[in-house]
Structure formats: structure tokens, C-alpha cells
């Protein structure tokens, strides 16, 4: 019943994950699978595009919390873009903006990766 979809695409050396719909404890494993796939392929530079994400619970936020350190240990990162205000507010309530970079547009997040080489 939960409507969620995740898509992975490569933009240069960065992997972009598009998340759509509702990200909760039921759908979070689908996102975990994508992160596991990235680790298998040694892809550590990630942008998550939230443009079509309508809803997130802490189970969704937990996925980023569980993987970001591994990405950073390997000179990568998880950066966020195109987040709707209602979704951003949840990240904000839990203090994520101190530890993660949020960008209005996907290209800004991609450029940030480019600027650090």
C-alpha cells in the first residue's frame, strides 16, 4: 500500500538517488538496498534528490545516518537536494542540518562534489 519508489542514476562521478512518495519503516529497506549496492560498487559520492518525496519518518532518516559515515570515511558524502519544506522540517527537528549539507537544487550539490575534487 505504501507508495514509494527509488531510482539510481550516475551523473559524472556522483550517484544520484531519486526518492519518490512515502519513506517509512516499510519502504526504508528499499533505500537501504540502493546504499548497499553503492557500497558494493565502491560509489561513495551520493546526492539524494527529494523532489518527489512526500513523506519521511525517522526510519527513513535512519538510513542516511547509518551510511553517511562509511561514505565520508571513503572521501565521499551524502548530500541532499530539492527537499520540500515539510520534509526538511523533520530533518531540522532532529538536528541533521548541522551534520549534512542541504541544497536547493541537485546541480548545486553536484557542483559541491566537483569543487572538492
Amino acid at each position, binding site marked *: *500500500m*505504501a*507508495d514509494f519508489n527509488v531510482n539510481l542514476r550516475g551523473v559524472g562521478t556522483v550517484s544520484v538517488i531519486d526518492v519518490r512518495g*512515502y519513506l*517509512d*519503516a*516499510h519502504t*526504508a529497506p528499499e533505500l*537501504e538496498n540502493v546504499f548497499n549496492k553503492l557500497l558494493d560498487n565502491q560509489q561513495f559520492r551520493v546526492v539524494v534528490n527529494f523532489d518527489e518525496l512526500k*513523506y519521511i*519518518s*525517522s*526510519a527513513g*532518516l*535512519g*538510513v542516511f*545516518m*547509518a*551510511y*553517511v*559515515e*562509511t561514505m565520508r570515511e571513503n572521501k565521499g558524502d551524502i548530500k541532499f537536494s530539492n527537499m520540500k519544506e*515539510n520534509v526538511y522540517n*523533520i530533518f531540522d*527537528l*532532529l*538536528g*541533521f542540518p*548541522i*551534520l549534512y549539507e542541504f541544497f536547493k537544487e541537485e546541480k548545486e550539490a553536484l557542483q559541491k562534489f566537483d569543487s572538492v575534487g
Partner: protein
Amino acid sequence: MNISKKIFEREILVKSTTDNLALIREFTKSAAEECNFSEETAGKIILAVDEACTNIIKHAYKYSPEGNINISFKFESGKIIISITDEGKHFDPAQIPEPDLIQFQEQKRSGGLGMFLMKKLMDEVKYSTLTGNKNQVVLVKYLS
């Protein structure tokens, strides 16, 4: 009509599976809307109920799909009172530490944020043990 005087009651019983979370959110949304909460506040109530039920599925029932979760909504005296009851493993909320995001990240943890989020979203969150070995969490949100 003065909404604060209106009495509203509704109840739903669901099994402890994560695929019921969407249904629980829909039910909560219509209850919050009927009680005249703004879209923004309804969003907070929906998320808090989702978090409470997720915790029950994950911790009280350890993902066993046969557990019962009873959710009752009541609107009175200008507030919505949501009582969520389960028959799973009891837990002591006092034992759950405030989340430390930096530490969680270093430990590569994916959980531990739900209870804290519920407290941030709602005006009151109370845990209790009922007779018959039931656990209950009561969430309260004021309309104003």
C-alpha cells in the same frame, strides 16, 4: 459551532506489520482533519502516530506480524488524545537515551530517533502499563 466543545471518537485495530503504516497514516489524517487541525499540525500528528506504531512493530512485537495495535482517537476540551495500545514486550521509556546524532552516525546506527521525534511533534507523550500486560502510549496535541 465551537469545535472545542465537540466530542469526537474513533478507533482502529491493526496487525503489527509495517505495510499497515500507510493505512494508519490515512486514518490519522482523516481524524486530524475532522478535528480541524491545520495541514501542518495534522502532518505532525500523523508522523507521531507512525513513529509510535513503528516502535511497537519493531520493539514490542519484534516484527512478528500477528500482534494487535489498537489506536483510539478522542477529541475533547480542545485537544486530540490518541491512545495506542499493544500486547507486546514491555519497555521502559526512561531507559531510552536522548539521541546523540554524532554518536549514532559514528556507530552507523539506523534507529533510536523515533521516541525523541514524537516528543518534539506532540504536546504530551505518556507511556504506561495497563492491566492484562498491555502497553499504552498516549499522544496529546492541542488545537490552538
